[in-house]
């Protein structure tokens, strides 16, 4: 279990790194999908199979498809890759990298101050438990989420129209 977790985590981090540094949007998306799949594996490893499978179906299978779809529609081509190459100079990376590292250091520091380690991954929380909670105490959140999706649907329809 721990091995699976570590491997997935390593894949996730590397793939994410490649995703944000890749020049070609499609390659970046592929790396991102790999990263998401790896995170899904992490979910499996820590006993949340339902979340993991949703990660694959919704994140990798729907949202990322949408991304790829849009990239394909835009059909950016070689020029876009060249432009990305010109934009991505070390000077551009330096500042954000420092900022991100500081943030990461702070987060790690916070984690370091946490009380004694607590274990995760004992047993699984299956779809049944999640569903029961989702349509029980979190019913209002479900309704809000559906409203959000409806709003997003309308907004995307409006924005995506060809005027």
């Amino acid at each position, binding site marked *: 279990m721990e091995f699976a977790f570590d491997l997935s985590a390593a894949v996730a981090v590397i793939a994410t790194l490649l995703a944000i540094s890749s020049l070609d949007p499609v390659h970046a998306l592929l790396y991102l999908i790999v990263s998401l799949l790896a*995170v899904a594996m992490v979910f499996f490893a*820590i006993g949340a199979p339902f979340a993991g499978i949703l990660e694959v179906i919704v994140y990798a299978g729907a949202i990322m498809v949408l991304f790829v779809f849009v990239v394909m529609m835009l059909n950016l081509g070689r020029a876009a890759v060249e*432009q990305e190459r010109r934009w*991505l100079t070390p000077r551009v*990376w330096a500042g*954000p990298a420092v900022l991100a590292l500081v943030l990461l250091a702070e987060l790690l520091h916070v984690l370091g101050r946490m009380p004694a380690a607590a274990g*995760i991954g004992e047993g699984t929380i299956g779809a049944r438990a*999640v569903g029961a909670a989702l349509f029980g105490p979190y019913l209002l959140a479900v309704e809000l989420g559906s409203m959000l999706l409806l709003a997003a649907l309308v907004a995307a329809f409006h924005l*995506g129209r060809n005027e």
Partner: protein
Amino acid sequence: MTEATTLPLEHALILSGILFALGLLGILARRNVLFVLMSIEIMMNAAALAFVAAGSRWHAADGQILFILILTLAASEASVGLALVLQIYRRFGTLDTDAAGELKG
């Protein structure tokens, strides 16, 4: 899976933190809107990971509930964001966020 092997919560949270920082790095460093959106997805995913891990720590389904809500959010965000990407490309002929900075004060 005969014996319950556990791993420390910190590991999952550290992974979440790393992914979050990488997403932030992507947002800050990339000029292309597509990459910015992708980085946002990375950050949301990192947050979701933290929730699921915490839920797992307490043997509660709530973490995954929040994961589902984040998923909803991510889906909405991606659809609207990508529609905006299409509009930006249509209007400005580029995906450069700086070129589309017409709302500046």
